[in-house]
């Protein structure tokens, strides 16, 4: 008999839905208890390992994250030698291991992000709610968030042509 090789666990699907003209909800299950998933969201050295996917070709060049209720954060992202983009805001609520709420203050009409962690039989359902102050704010931020890497690629192309 040969040993069973540990296979790569199946990826759980990510669901995304625009639930109103101000809110987007993202849902994903993780194969681990809530305390560990919460830890990965709230320890800066762990959070910064996954928040910016490698495929984006950008790096987190600096971060200050004081993850407690009332604390603030500041993340600087950079692509190549371009001017870094800075994201900052405040932690409105940090309740281990079930709830995390922060503001996005890089624009005056940024969303409030609420993340809930619900453990079921050793797995954790993570629900991310992004609530924008208005429909117009969501429309503006929509482009910024979703189009981020593409707009950089477009800028690269422009610079290459110059």
């Amino acid at each position: 008999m040969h040993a069973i090789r540990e296979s790569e666990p199946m990826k759980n699907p990510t669901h995304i839905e625009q639930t109103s003209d101000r809110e987007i909800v993202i849902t994903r299950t993780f194969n681990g208890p809530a305390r560990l998933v919460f830890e990965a969201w709230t320890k800066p050295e762990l959070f910064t390992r996954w928040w910016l996917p490698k495929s984006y070709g950008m790096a987190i060049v600096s971060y200050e994250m004081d993850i407690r209720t009332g604390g603030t954060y500041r993340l600087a992202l950079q692509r190549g030698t371009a001017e870094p983009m800075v994201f900052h805001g405040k932690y409105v609520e940090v309740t281990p291991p079930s709830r995390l709420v922060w503001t996005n203050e890089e624009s005056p009409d940024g969303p409030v992000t609420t993340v809930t962690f619900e453990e079921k039989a050793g797995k954790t359902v993570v629900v991310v709610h992004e609530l924008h102050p208005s429909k117009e704010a969501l429309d503006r931020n929509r482009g910024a968030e979703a189009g981020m890497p593409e707009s950089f690629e477009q800028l690269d192309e422009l610079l290459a042509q110059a």
Partner: protein
Amino acid sequence: MVQYRVDALDASFAALSDATRRGVLERLGRADASITDLAEKFDMTLTGMKKHVGVLEQAGLVTTEKVGRVRTCKLGPHRLQEVADWIDRYRQLWESRFDELDAVVEELKRKEKSDARDKRK
């Protein structure tokens, strides 16, 4: 151009915020239909259905053509794709994030297990 695209997306999202209109799009995705057909299928007055189709038409999601006394509706060229593209790109961002988060969670689980083993020793 950019502003035009934002306005077009706005109109698309507004048009899609209604369940009947989403149903009409789904129906037209399968086959073209007249307003009379659609009104019957959705158990609605002709006037009510005309209004819904009007909103979809303004958003560019549907085009209509009158032949004789029948107005036929069909899906518009690209707009629905544009709406789907945005949400798709955003889903891809979160998917990539979460795939990397999986790896972090796996590592924490392994670490917790080995710490527990060490304690028992």
